[in-house]
């Protein structure tokens, strides 16, 4: 049990995918201008990340290893992720048009989120089992969502600040992200490797 909690603490805080591992920076910068869109993106990413890390684990365990095709791993995972994203989009579209409207463009965008592929590959590298893979994906997604929502609320406030001309927009946002990453270094050592 405690190792599962450690996986969650590790992925959400200590090895946060955005602020410590620097993965998934494109949606982090791209959709953080408004709190509402950030919340939508977080929900969609959480679902896709958890599903895709489960699916890629299954694909690796029951398809690639028995057939001796480990060298196709990256390509297979990209395919699996694209499939999960497309599948999610179709299901959401049919079952809940309202949610589909809220998530809108963000669903297909998740395919290009490097954190999703990163989680799938790291699961293999760290030799995670089924539950561990699912938790790792879920924790990574929760960490991503938390940081994205906090960041978007900060950006809404910075947008009305008297920032020097040369630093307006993305530059001050990147500086803020850097300072946030500095704060997250305080969690170092919480989980012993």
């Amino acid at each position, binding site marked *: 049990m405690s190792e599962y909690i450690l996986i969650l603490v590790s992925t959400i805080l200590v090895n946060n995918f955005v602020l410590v591992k620097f993965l998934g920076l494109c949606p982090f910068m791209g959709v953080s201008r408004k*709190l509402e869109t950030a919340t939508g993106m977080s929900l969609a990413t959480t679902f896709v990340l958890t599903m895709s890390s489960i699916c890629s684990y299954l694909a690796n365990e029951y398809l690639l290893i028995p057939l001796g095709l480990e060298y196709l791993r990256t390509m297979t995972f990209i395919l699996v992720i694209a499939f999960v994203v497309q599948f999610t989009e179709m299901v959401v579209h049919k079952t809940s048009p309202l949610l589909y409207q809220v998530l809108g463009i963000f669903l297909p965008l998740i395919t290009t989120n490097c954190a999703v592929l990163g989680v799938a590959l790291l699961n293999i590298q760290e030799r995670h089992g089924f539950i561990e893979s699912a938790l790792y994906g879920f924790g990574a997604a929760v960490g991503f969502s938390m940081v994205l*929502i*906090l960041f978007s*609320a*900060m950006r*809404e*406030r*910075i947008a009305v*600040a*008297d*920032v*020097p001309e040369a*630093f307006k927009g993305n530059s*001050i946002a990147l*500086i*803020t992200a850097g*300072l*946030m990453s*500095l*704060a*997250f*270094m*305080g*969690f*170092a*050592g*919480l989980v012993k490797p």
Partner: protein
Amino acid sequence: MPFINTSSPHQQNQSSVPDLMRKVLLALIPGALACLYYFGFGVLVNIVIASATALASETIMLNLRHYPVRRYLTDYSALVTAILLALALPATVPWWLTVIATSFAIVIAKQLYGGLGYNPFNPAMIGYVVALIAFPQQMTQWPVPQPGGALGLLDVLLLQLTGTLSDPAILDAVTSATPMDQIKTGIGLNRTIGEISTGALFGTVAGRGWELVNLLFLLGGLWLLWKKVINWQIPVAVLSALFFWSWMFNLYDGDLYSSPFFHLFSGGTMLCAFFIATDPVTASTTHWGRLIYGMGIGILTFIIRNWGGYPDGIAFAVILMNMAVPTIDYYTQPRVFGHQDED
């Protein structure tokens, strides 16, 4: 009969920014004097270097932006940042470390965001964290608390300005890790709290010297509360959250977790709770928001102190909660009078 028409608010607060900052500086004096008494002239040297750097970098930035220098410099906010940072730095750090930390705090954490009122992070704590991460060795060596200070004025100046001492052997004798750091190392070596705190560095409830420093910062903070410069919610929430969790864990295993009073009177607890966390710009502004913000700082401090890699988690806790302030404010907006919920 003519009526005087004035628009609301009718009861106005007369205090201005320079006035508030002056009161904060006044309230810092007793604690700062205690620091000076126990840690020696290094505290004074830090304060002088940090203040000069802060004023210089603020002037340069204001000049670059073509803003009126005098008006912004005389609001004392740069001075408050510099002095809080100087009090947080160990009293033996070399001069360039103070300069780097202070200029980073003023230039990047404050002026790039547009100056006072816009900075999302507490500048002093950003400066401290930058120094802690970049120069961990210098930042964890504190002078041994000793009435009158362990080093003379000349030795301190020599050490901080040139990095050498007349007799290099003195350095090891007069500096050591803080009590909190020692507890952390001791626990790692499977010793109990009781065994570790028999050391010469420990006093009645916390580190020798540190107790009095924290007590005087507490008094200064209470004076600020009485003068209504700060709100009660944040200090109360910080201290009670820290007290509650350390008490619970101390009850659970007194050999592994220090007493709640040790946590309250060690490191920068009181300085943080009354002077740093209450910074009106970077703290939450709603009633419930302040309580959540303060409790967050208390809990994160406790977590980082006990299980994290850094000896004191105060600075990290403050900037982590600064990060959450816009979100907290967004979700704790009080209902506007006269409006109804949408459902």
